[in-house]
């Protein structure tokens, strides 16, 4: 009986966590995610400025932030974008963070 309860708890937990604070990533990590990946590249030459924008999610219930290219470029005072990288962090589906970093002039 105890085993059945335990199994039920595990399945419920797995189902709940699978739809929790997940964040898009090129490679998935169920327990922990910390991935840097490319987002976009332009033909503009060189970069001497950079800007960052973030969005976070807690338990997949609350998600806030402005992780747009516009916000990141604005934060760095960038008018010509060279390339954009994304950083993804996720912990057990409890916490997820998506960061966009824009490089340019």
């Amino acid at each position: 009986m105890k085993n059945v309860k335990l199994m039920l708890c595990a399945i419920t937990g797995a189902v709940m966590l699978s739809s929790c604070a997940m964040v898009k990533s090129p490679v998935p990590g169920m327990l922990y995610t910390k991935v840097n990946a490319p987002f976009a590249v332009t033909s503009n030459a060189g970069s001497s400025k950079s800007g960052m924008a973030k969005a976070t999610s807690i338990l997949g219930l609350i998600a806030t932030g402005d992780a747009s290219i516009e916000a990141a470029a604005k934060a760095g005072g960038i008018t010509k974008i060279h390339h954009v990288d994304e950083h993804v962090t996720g912990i057990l589906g409890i916490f997820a963070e998506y960061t966009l970093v824009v490089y340019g002039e």
Partner: protein
Amino acid sequence: MANSICRKTEVSVKRLPFFILAFLVVSISCSAQKISNRFSSILQDNGTFYFIYKQGTFYGKKKTSLHFDISYLSSRDSATFNFSYFDKEITSIDSLILIAATKRVAVPAKKLFVEPYGKKLQHRFTTSALFNDLVPFFSENSNPLIILHTKNGYKSLKISSGRWKKISSRTKKIMDLIIYNKTP
């Protein structure tokens, strides 16, 4: 005998989530001082471009706060020190002064934008300081102070010493790395 093995297995299964959580907490706290996640570097024609991500928050009176990030192109002498200042009122900032023990860096600030951020206003400013002048600021472990000169006087912002020790040590590590990579 079989019962005791079953019990032991059951107990270890019950403890498994705890061990996973403990492992994650320990690994995350251990990585707190890892610098690889705190900056990025890109090789370019005219040197290496470094971006030191947003650092810990300084706090002032009336729930004002400030955080900053640093960009640096290795072929240049000066680094870009961008900061966001959060206040309920519009503040016209002229210059920024970084003070740590006997070290002092004063630079003029140029406005990027001011826009609403929750109940406050985010004042985004950019400054340019000599990279070699910024290094000593992060070498000091004593409580630093950031002073913003405004048209109506000045605003001072502080950070807790414990928090500063972590920030300064990891930023210093990154700066040491940059200096090391610059030397032929």
